[in-house]
């Protein structure tokens, strides 16, 4: 039985603890009494994944029929897949999506289905390139379908979009026409965090800006406390996607959802110490850590990125569930919680986060300052249920160098957002009302999104909104080791060391604050009582 997560109280026996800081990490001594939240140990994976997939497809959940019975000759079948943003880091091949696709396609072939289209559900994310797609779906699927019948979703191809209707809250639902008009959509998901999957898969992954703006906005994000807690009433964004998903269902769009969960084996053996608790490090782990730390510090950025690009997660599959969306997602969340939930008693004055090198939007790319903001105050801050780990008005201290760097191909609109928008204001509501529409409809960004590998023009806005709740909740945000200019542009403060940061936070939290360090990754959810 793997050990559950727990909360450590730093005492004099505690060694320095590992803290991620972008493309590197540090060993940090924490003040005595600091609480450190550790994730549970990885759950054992399913031994026979093929059998599990076969079983899930043959014995679906909810009111769905087994997949083979839904497939027939002459039908129109669309298979949608999650894109490169999950899991993080990309998992070792074969990717679970490949394994599932092979089963689904095999069944489709046996049933005589001819018209099959595979769509990577990128929504407003960048298009995946051929080699990325090939790695994800496997050679066989790639060779059979790419490029004509295996494509990236295009949210700006208005002819290929279908407006399904409006929810009772007046939200437009517009998704891929091909998907909407198919006899069956099979959605293949990887559920790394609690916000993934469920109705979000189709209603967000295959949706256009017209549809997404109803929930990807500041108001919704401020009422999503947290968006990692998809229980009704806790996450406005989830409630909205559920309404959209139900509208799709009621409009006759038939979805067969396949959801998978992975355990928490996030880092390969070569970085095995990142999966372990520090006091359990042997001499080998300590040596490896020092070698890796020095190695990345001394190597030039290009080499460093190449090193991280090659990091593949040896995730093991903990669950494969298929059938009706809501029934499947309920089981998926239970599986996810089994792996990720850690009970924490009470909030603290200060929350410390170590931001790793990777977030959902910089796979094979650069974690630019806006993505740093999103990863910290968006993702890691929101990894809670019930209450945030830090009290209202407390301080959030994050470790990241926040370099003023952007990927020219992947994030063109981010550059302008940083240079133009953030130079004027950092207030999410002002940004939304004043700039969003212009960026979202800018023809050049749209062109790059459709033909190159750029994130949509509006995407940096979403990243900013994603951190809106954290920003609103925290009284002070300090980056340890952050580049002064870029941190200032984000509207935050920076410090050279944790000690300085705590000194600076005195005005907000007093001289002897309670401190919590959230020791992630691996991903976990703090259940704060």
């Amino acid at each position, binding site marked *: 039985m793997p050990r559950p997560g727990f909360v450590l109280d730093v005492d004099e026996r505690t*060694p320095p603890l590992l803290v991620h800081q972008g493309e590197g990490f540090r*060993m940090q001594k924490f003040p005595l009494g600091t609480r450190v939240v550790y994730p549970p140990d990885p759950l054992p994976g399913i031994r026979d994944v093929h059998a599990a997939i076969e079983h899930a497809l043959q014995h679906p959940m909810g009111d769905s029929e087994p997949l083979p019975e839904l497939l027939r000759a002459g039908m129109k079948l669309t298979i949608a897949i999650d894109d490169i943003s999950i899991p993080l880091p990309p998992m070792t091949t074969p990717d679970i999506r490949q394994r599932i696709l092979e089963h689904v396609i095999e069944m489709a072939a046996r049933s005589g289905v001819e018209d099959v289209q595979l769509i990577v559900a990128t929504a407003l994310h960048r298009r995946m390139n051929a080699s990325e797609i090939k790695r994800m779906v496997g050679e066989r699927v790639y060779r059979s379908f790419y490029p004509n019948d295996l494509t990236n979703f295009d949210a700006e191809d208005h002819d290929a979009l279908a407006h399904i209707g409006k929810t009772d809250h007046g939200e437009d639902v517009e998704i891929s026409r091909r998907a909407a008009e198919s006899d069956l959509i099979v959605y293949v998901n990887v559920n790394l965090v609690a916000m993934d999957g469920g109705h979000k898969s189709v209603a967000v992954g295959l949706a256009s800006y017209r549809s997404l703006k109803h929930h990807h906005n500041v108001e919704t994000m401020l009422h999503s406390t947290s968006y990692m807690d998809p229980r009704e009433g806790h996450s406005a964004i989830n409630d909205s996607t559920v309404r959209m998903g139900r509208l799709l269902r009621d409009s006759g769009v038939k979805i067969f959802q396949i959801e998978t969960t992975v355990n928490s084996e996030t880092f390969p053996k070569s970085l095995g110490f990142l999966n372990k*608790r520090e006091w359990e490090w042997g001499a080998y782990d*300590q040596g490896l850590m020092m070698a890796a730390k020095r190695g990345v510090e001394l190597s030039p950025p290009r080499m460093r990125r190449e090193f991280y690009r090659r990091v593949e997660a040896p995730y093991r599959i903990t669950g494969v569930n298929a059938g009706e969306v809501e029934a499947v997602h309920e089981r998926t969340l239970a599986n996810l919680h089994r792996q990720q939930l850690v009970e924490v008693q009470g909030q603290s004055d200060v929350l410390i986060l170590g931001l790793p090198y990777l977030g959902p939007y910089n796979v094979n790319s650069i974690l630019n300052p806006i993505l740093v903001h999103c990863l910290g105050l968006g993702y890691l801050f929101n990894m809670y249920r019930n209450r945030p780990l830090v009290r209202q008005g407390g301080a959030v201290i994050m470790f990241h160098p926040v370099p003023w760097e952007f990927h020219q191909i992947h994030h063109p609109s981010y550059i302008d957002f940083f240079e133009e928008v953030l130079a004027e204001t950092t207030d999410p509501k002002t940004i939304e009302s004043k700039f969003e529409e212009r960026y979202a409809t800018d023809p050049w960004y749209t062109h790059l999104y459709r033909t190159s590998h750029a994130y949509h023009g509006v995407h940096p806005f979403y990243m900013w909104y994603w951190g809106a709740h954290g920003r609103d909740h925290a009284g002070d945000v300090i980056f340890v080791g952050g580049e002064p200019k870029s941190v200032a542009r984000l509207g935050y403060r920076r410090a050279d060391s944790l000690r300085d940061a705590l000194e600076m936070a005195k005005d907000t939290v007093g001289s002897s604050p309670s401190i919590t360090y959230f020791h992630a990754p691996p991903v976990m959810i703090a259940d704060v009582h």
Partner: protein
Amino acid sequence: MGMRTELKEMASGFRWGRRPLVPRSAEPHAEPRGERAFPTAWARTTAAIAARQTILKFGMKPLLWNEVTPRVHGLDNLKGLQGPVLFVSNHTSHLDATLIMTTLPDEWQARTAVGAAKDYFFDVWWRQTFTALIYGAFPIDRAAGKGATTMARELLDDGWSLVVFPEGARSPDGHQQRFRHGASRLSIESGVPVVPIAIRGAYQAMPKGRNWPRPGRPPVSIRYGRPVFPQDEETHQELSLRMQRSIAELHDEDANTWWVALHRAERGETPSISGPTGAAWRRRWDGSRPIGRRGPGRTWE
């Protein structure tokens, strides 16, 4: 941060060279048992045996003989005895294993391994290596119950004699503690004799808590007894008692004379070596009483 500072922080934070500690709040969440055992088979190869004997003879023995004043008796009990055997002794000091290993005749020394607590001697790499090389030691998992003797049984089967301290830990007050039954069980199951050994003065020389003998070359006496063979249908409890009695008689013999000890044993009046009852300080006070520099008087004196 410079490399030097970093190394310094790592060394102090991770207690390099010392026993790693688990933060108190993490103790209930400690890693489950059964982690990879330190391999010790290499320490019983011909090369390692040769190295061990050289180190014992030219390193450990002169060093020990320089720091304490040992008196060795009863080695003739080993003459004509066929190995493997279990050497069983009272345990009051880290000196005990070294005393036994350095005083055993060469042919016995070459084929003898010491059972050492896994949680104490097999924690950090240098201690593991040192213990395995110098003592030919193998780990005994004190928390493993009956499973603790698995490796010992394999070694006996391979013809290795073993040094075992049935008390399981050094005495905190110099007196004998309760014997655990692992050694007697082993003896009965493998059909090997037990050679009792009484060690006196080691507690006074280097009690628990010290890592070097007291100055002044304190006297230490080690006395080998006659082998005790397990009898047919003898239970391990009975054998344990016999072992304890033999060690107590050896103590008596060492403190007085063979003649006196024999008579007392005959009358069942051998003084107990489990010390006085009562307050802990009384036991420690009694246990730390010096044993006398000259040893027992000779019969003709």
